[in-house]
């Protein structure tokens, strides 16, 4: 077979070579292909996983989740809307050119320029300017005081200005050059991307000579690949898979609590759930513990609010609604909603079993839940549309990748936001205040009040803090992190 493979089209050759010395190469099975290699364009998990290893970012998070310097050495606010970054001057791009303050300023300007059509624009559009203010210094200005700025900047990769301007945006997407520990060798769309180590990397010596990211959409196939040694690590396992694979001697299951919160959206502006009592009844009718033990196999931690402990602004002592189907049923009856039809909107992106379990649980408290499944675009169109067409319920798994309450409850429940089907001026005032002050303690006070309102009004119910579950060969050493980052430099072969 191997001999025959060489008569096969040249497209298949690269991989054959990569397999020659497996220990040199880390093979990663991802659920999908990279959409873009340009870090300023797509920001889906697959693309981020790959290009984040090619680029350095201004700042990053350490294993504990703390924001730490990377290209920047430090930063300070000169006023509420101005922040100055000091930069390293010993970083080289993979083409040998030096990473300068110009490159950093260019990167910020590039991503906030509407002409780039970057889907990430909304995460950075609070920034109004980026200027070089010293040989190794850049100053950013924001429209208003913006506490989430640092969290957003964690996602800003630094691209080489001269190179991008020379070859153009489109070509840059095909042949990116960064300053990160790995450089792109080949990218076969839909198949795999192969990265080679950047041996002159400034921070550490990259642990593997090559890294191959393969697109394998099917979970059973990814698991089979791990078992047969075709891949070293994969992600996106379900708790059921994790349980089943626990006993496998050659593999290790690595769950990590993430900043992703599983919650149930409840429409407070239309339909039977417009009545607060129905929403409260739903909160009491959902058996969170059974969901966690039976469906999540324990790979989840219950939360009382729509936020996880991994986020800033999480208030641990807000009481949750206790599971009480009898009281819930009574409340539904009292609201005159017994037998009312409640539409649960969903898409293939969400856990089907959870939907069906909730359908049955709410059936027991007297609500008739109908599940409407559409594909993701149609789901989003309805979910983000007017309250009347947004459905009464939908399941969500929310992560703002900024580990801040502002990225969660503001878009979800602030009136006027496309996701919000809730209108409460008191709540709006609290979250508005919390996003324009920089002082952490003060912000927490606002979030406590905001969560108290949410608890009473129930425009959504927090279910659990989701786990990301990785599966790796036993010999790979790595500790996954809450922000689902995938830094190859943090991995090594175990002796």
């Amino acid at each position, binding site marked *: 077979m191997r001999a025959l493979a060489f008569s096969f089209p040249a497209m298949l050759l690269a991989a054959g070579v990569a397999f020659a010395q497996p220990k040199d190469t880390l093979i990663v099975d991802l659920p999908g292909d990279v959409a873009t290699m340009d870090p300023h364009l797509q920001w889906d998990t697959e693309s981020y996983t790959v290009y984040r290893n090619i680029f350095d970012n201004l700042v990053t998070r350490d294993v504990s989740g703390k924001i730490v310097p990377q290209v920047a050495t430090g930063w300070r606010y000169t006023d509420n809307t101005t922040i100055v970054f000091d930069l390293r001057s010993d970083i080289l791009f993979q083409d040998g050119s030096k990473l300068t303050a110009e490159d950093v300023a260019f990167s910020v300007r590039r991503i906030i320029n509407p002409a780039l059509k970057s889907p990430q624009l909304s995460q950075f559009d609070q920034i109004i300017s980026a200027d070089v203010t010293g040989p190794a210094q850049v100053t950013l200005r924001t429209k208003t005081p913006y506490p989430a700025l640092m969290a957003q900047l964690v996602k800003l990769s630094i691209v080489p200005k001269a190179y991008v301007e020379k070859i153009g945006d489109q070509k840059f997407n095909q042949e990116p050059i960064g300053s990160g520990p790995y450089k792109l060798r080949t990218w076969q769309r839909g198949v795999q991307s192969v990265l080679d180590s950047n041996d002159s990397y400034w921070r550490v010596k990259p642990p593997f000579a090559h890294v191959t990211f393969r697109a394998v959409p*099917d*979970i*059973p196939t990814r*698991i089979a690949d791990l078992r047969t040694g075709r891949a070293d690590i994969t992600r996106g396992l*379900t708790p*059921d*898979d994790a349980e*089943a694979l626990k006993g496998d001697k050659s593999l290790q299951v690595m769950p990590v609590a993430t900043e992703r919160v599983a919650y149930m959206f409840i429409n407070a502006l239309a339909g039977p759930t417009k009545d607060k009592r129905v929403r409260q009844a739903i909160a009491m009718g959902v058996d969170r513990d*059974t*969901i966690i033990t*039976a*469906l999540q196999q324990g790979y989840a931690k219950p939360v009382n609010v729509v936020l996880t402990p991994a986020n800033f602004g999480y208030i641990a002592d807000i009481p949750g609604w206790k599971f009480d189907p009898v009281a819930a049923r009574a409340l539904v009856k009292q609201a005159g909603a017994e037998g009312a039809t409640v539409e649960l909107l969903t898409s*293939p992106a969400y856990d*089907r*079993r959870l*939907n*069906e*379990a909730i*359908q*049955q649980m709410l059936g027991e408290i007297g609500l008739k839940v109908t*599940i*409407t*499944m*559409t*594909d993701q*675009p*149609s789901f989003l169109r309805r979910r983000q549309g007017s309250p009347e067409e947004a459905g009464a319920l939908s399941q969500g798994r929310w992560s703002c990748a900024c580990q801040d309450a502002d990225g969660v409850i503001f878009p979800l429940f602030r009136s006027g936001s496309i996701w919000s089907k809730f209108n409460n001026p008191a709540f709006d005032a609290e979250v508005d205040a919390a996003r324009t002050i920089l002082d952490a303690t003060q912000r927490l006070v606002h979030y406590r009040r905001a969560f108290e309102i949410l608890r009473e009004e129930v425009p959504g119910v927090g279910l659990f803090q989701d786990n990301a579950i990785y599966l790796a060969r036993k010999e790979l050493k790595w500790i996954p992190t809450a922000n689902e980052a995938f830094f190859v430099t943090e991995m090594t072969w175990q002796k």
Partner: protein
Amino acid sequence: MRRISLGTALIFAGLLAFIVAAIGADVFASNDPLRQSLLLRLRPPGTATATAYFPLGTDDLGRDLLARILYGARASLMVAALSVSVSLLVGVTLGLMAGWFGGWVSIVAMRAVDTMLSIPAILLAVLTVAVLGPGFFNLVLVLGLTRWPRYTRVAYAQTLQVAALPYVRAAEMAGCGPGRILLRHVLPNIAGPLMVVATSEFGLMILFEASLSFLGLGIQPPYPSWGSIMSAGRQYVVRAWWLTAFPGACLFGVVLCVNLFGDWLRDRVDPRSQGR
């Protein structure tokens, strides 16, 4: 009347079992196909508890697999029967008209057939589901409205032949209107070949329904379809083989019977093709 062979009897028995299972799903299923018991998830065939017996095991929400397969048969049967009816109606009407009137009617109809046939059916179905949204009736519509061209082709060719027959010409001379001639004289004469096409399409529709449900675009949860049971079970192939094995085997068996029946029917309709 030829004697019916053992093989033929088996085909009929298989089809009958399928139809009876589909119609009588509520009678045969001892458990509610929608009733979950989250603490009895993924139990193997033959599991018995104090209150219930699961001959084929349970699915990932602890529902009785046998009951779900029986109700899944109903979904298969209904989707296939209805979508074949829809496409038969559309396709035959177009084909009859194209064959009878000829001229621009046939040009338009046959170009439409070319167009439809050159779009991969499953892609067209996926696209249409994306617009209409999934669900039982949309599924029937999607399958029905994308699968008519084969009937049009057959009806067209057959109508051309039959229309040239003397008695049809005679009926025309006698002043029968086209509607009457097509329905009373042409249609009965071309019904045989159309039935053969419809049977093979029926088998295909069962497969299509399962494929779309497998892709998550067909019958919606919690209602069972063989495709969606397998789609869910696919995740558990290694741990819970019964979730893919049983519905898969049912699907295979039923489609096999339908295809065998189609062959038998073709021998009947067109004795020249004996045993083909």
